[in-house]
């Protein structure tokens, strides 16, 4: 694989795709050097700040109907703002690796919270530690009001344990099913009793609710508290294996390759769960650049939308359009389907979501029109003419703006149009698709066509 393809693959997986403009920034770099650039671009952690700290609970205290209604409206607005802010951030930031990993942790530590400031706080924890230490990330996520509330630990009290939190910490965050017993769940639930949060959204250990008695957990006995349980979980190599398995599916291939995953887990465990050395190991591993590991992952709806926004510098007058796209494509940020997160892979694709995916690029780039220069019969001519007439209507509804000038300016001089169009795709362009695109001579049309294909769904 030549150097450019390696860098392109790296950016597709470690970010949301390489842009024409990135070509000059990475020219002359090896893939390993480009990786260091990705790390340094992600050095700073720019936190999301769209929801005010005080979410207006004073309104609720008034306990009248009008105030409650106002509060609910405000909550909905905050939810929307938070979603839009993160989408916009992913679509414009230089810290792509950090956001890509934040998105991974967002799904790994799947959580829904009706209080947007809790959701924002959790999201920022995941962003701040996205490339840091997994143990610290796990501890902070476990102590976040959003997660404690979502997994009912506020109700976990001495004498009345609620096991939900303890179970999910093991099943979904660390060990995975089959690597602990029901007894371990019961005992660790006792250790987590008293973990909660106060009305300011801060973690609070409530000693009078805590069961300080002796517990036996994963073969160890002691008067464990919640921190002790998390430390024991991190001591298990299985935690490293579990995380690496999931990360491999996210970054490399949906089909796990045990040898590669075990090698990843060794690095992760040996480095005390530091995330950067693990990522460096993956992105510099020769197998990462194997043909079978390129252009074969189905983009999540968010990766698809963010990639499109970035490549064409799309801005939205009505950002809620992006929320509607998330809905019809089956992934609304902050609304995972359940505690296990979005299943991903082929689960993203059904008849309707695929048709939306094929149609959305032309909607935001060209008022819904995919110009067609093939041999169109009269019926098809009529179809295209109708779409052309509807362009202003679509534009008025979507209200997006693409930075075409910026795109054209950054396309390398001397590259032929078909090469430029195929740059937008991760899988190698088949001859059939190349022939299809060659029907037109207009670069803009060719690019719109390229991103309106099944190939564009892959990274």
């Amino acid at each position, binding site marked *: 694989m030549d150097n450019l393809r390696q860098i392109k693959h790296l950016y597709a997986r470690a970010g949301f795709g390489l842009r024409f403009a990135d070509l000059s920034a990475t020219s002359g770099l090896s893939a390993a050097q480009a990786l260091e650039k990705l790390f340094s671009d992600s050095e700073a952690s720019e936190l999301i700040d769209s929801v005010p700290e005080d979410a207006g609970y004073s309104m609720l205290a008034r306990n009248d109907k009008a105030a409650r209604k106002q509060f609910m409206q405000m909550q909905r607005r905050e939810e929307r703002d938070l979603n839009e802010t993160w989408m916009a951030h992913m679509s414009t930031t230089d810290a792509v690796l950090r956001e890509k990993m934040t998105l991974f942790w967002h799904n790994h530590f799947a959580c829904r919270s009706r209080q947007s400031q809790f959701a924002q706080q959790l999201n920022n924890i995941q962003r701040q530690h996205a490339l840091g230490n997994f143990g610290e990330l796990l501890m902070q996520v476990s102590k976040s009001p959003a997660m404690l509330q979502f997994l009912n630990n506020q109700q976990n009290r001495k004498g009345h344990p609620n096991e939900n939190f303890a179970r999910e910490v093991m099943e979904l965050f660390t060990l995975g099913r089959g690597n602990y017993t029901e007894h371990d769940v019961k005992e660790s639930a006792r250790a987590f009793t008293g973990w909660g949060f106060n009305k300011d959204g801060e973690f609070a250990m409530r000693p009078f609710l805590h069961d300080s008695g002796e517990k036996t957990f994963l073969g160890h006995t002691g008067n464990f508290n919640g921190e002790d349980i998390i430390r024991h979980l991190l001591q298990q190599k299985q935690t490293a294996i579990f995380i690496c398995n999931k990360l491999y599916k996210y970054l490399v291939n949906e089909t796990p390759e045990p040898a590669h995953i075990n090698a990843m887990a060794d690095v992760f465990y040996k480095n005390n769960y530091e995330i950067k050395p693990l990522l460096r190991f993956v992105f510099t591993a020769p197998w990462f650049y194997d043909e079978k590991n390129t252009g074969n992952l189905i983009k999540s709806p968010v990766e698809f939308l963010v990639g499109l926004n970035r490549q064409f510098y799309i801005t939205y007058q009505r950002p809620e359009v992006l929320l509607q796209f998330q809905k019809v494509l089956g992934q609304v940020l902050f609304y995972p389907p359940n505690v296990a997160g979005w299943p991903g892979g082929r689960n993203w694709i059904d008849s309707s979501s695929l*048709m939306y995916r094929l149609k959305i690029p032309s909607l935001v780039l060209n008022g819904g029109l995919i110009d067609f220069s*093939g041999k*169109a019969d009269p019926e098809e001519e009529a179809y295209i003419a109708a779409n052309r007439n509807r362009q202003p209507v679509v534009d008025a509804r979507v209200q997006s703006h693409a930075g075409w000038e910026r795109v054209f300016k950054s396309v390398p001089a001397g590259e032929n149009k078909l090469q430029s169009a195929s740059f937008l795709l991760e899988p190698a362009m088949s001859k059939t698709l190349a022939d299809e695109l060659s029907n037109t001579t207009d670069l803009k049309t060719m690019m719109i066509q390229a991103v309106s294909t099944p190939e564009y769904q*892959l990274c």
Partner: protein
Amino acid sequence: MNRRNFIRKTALASGALMIPAFLKPFEAIAAGDITAYKNLVIIQLSGGNDGLNTIVPYGNDIYYQKRSTIAIGKSDVITLNNMQGLNPALSALKEIYEQGWMSIINGVGYPNPDRSHFRSMDIWQTASASNEFLTTGWIGRYLDSACTTCKNPYTAIEVDDTLSLAMKGAGIKGIAVEDPAKLYQTTREPFFKDLVSHHHDNLTEDNLGYLYKTMTETYSSAGYIQETSKTYEVSADYPATALGNQLRTVSKFINSGLQTRVYYVSLSGFDTHVGQQGQQGRQLKIYGDAVAAFIKDLKKTGQLDNTLVMTFSEFGRRVEQNASNGTDHGTANNILLFGGGLKKAGIYNDAPDLAQLDNGDLRYTTDFRDVYATLLDKWLDVTSQGILGKGFKPLSFI
């Protein structure tokens, strides 16, 4: 050969079923072709419909004690037997019930019930246990089961613009069709047509192959659904509501002889924490009027015996009302069934026991997967065990 003919002969040929529809689009389908098709129509009530104010236990004093301001008054209830009756907003269903086309299963739920809307809906749609997370739906796994009649996405149609988890299998997924003409139009984008027609012989097992396969199937399914159904006009009157329109579309599909076995529609607005009577009454009226119109329509067209309608919600609500004249999230609930082929019409089992509660909630007496097993084994003619993961006890309503 011009391009259109080329497409017909290649891409579209993948659905051999489509050719007759194309060759003789205006020819009525022989009655014999379609009577063998048994249809299941699933109606999902989203938000947690309060079953106790739907099928009202008016004969039980506890009901009136626990719901001092939101109970349905005895004189308003449409009595079915000396214990239960219909909410008056369901008056349109009285006639349907009397004809023996309706059956009510009380107390349907599952162990360790979850009171979260989305989690409990997940459980109902995937037919999982409450501590199990499945990524495929129960209808989706029916499609995956490779029964002879479920090779195509249009075997299961959701009349909506997106597809529910219930309809997604690992290998085969149903298809969402809100408006067949619109779906047809979208797929006929000339550029897409070209992609489909050139890639038909290029289907590999990898993700790219899967994407092209899905695109091609969508293309031919959209064609099949549109061509098969476009000439059939529903003559019956339906209420002008979203659910009424959806059921009219289902009627169009059934009566035009679409080779579909499962239809899925939903109605939301049942999360009645506040001011329940007005809110639930409005939604139940939308529901009852639309279902009554649908059942009468199918009776007239001779399809009622081949159709079974099942209505469920993700949970029922607490027995005792709350302080805002509403009810909070609860557990067990009733399932309503309609059709011409019910073996046991009327009230199928005992009304819920309001005296023996579990922390203020109804105890379930029938597992919802027993109901699913019945539908799979006795109506869709497959073996439920593989689809539901283990054996459940089929009931005797069909």
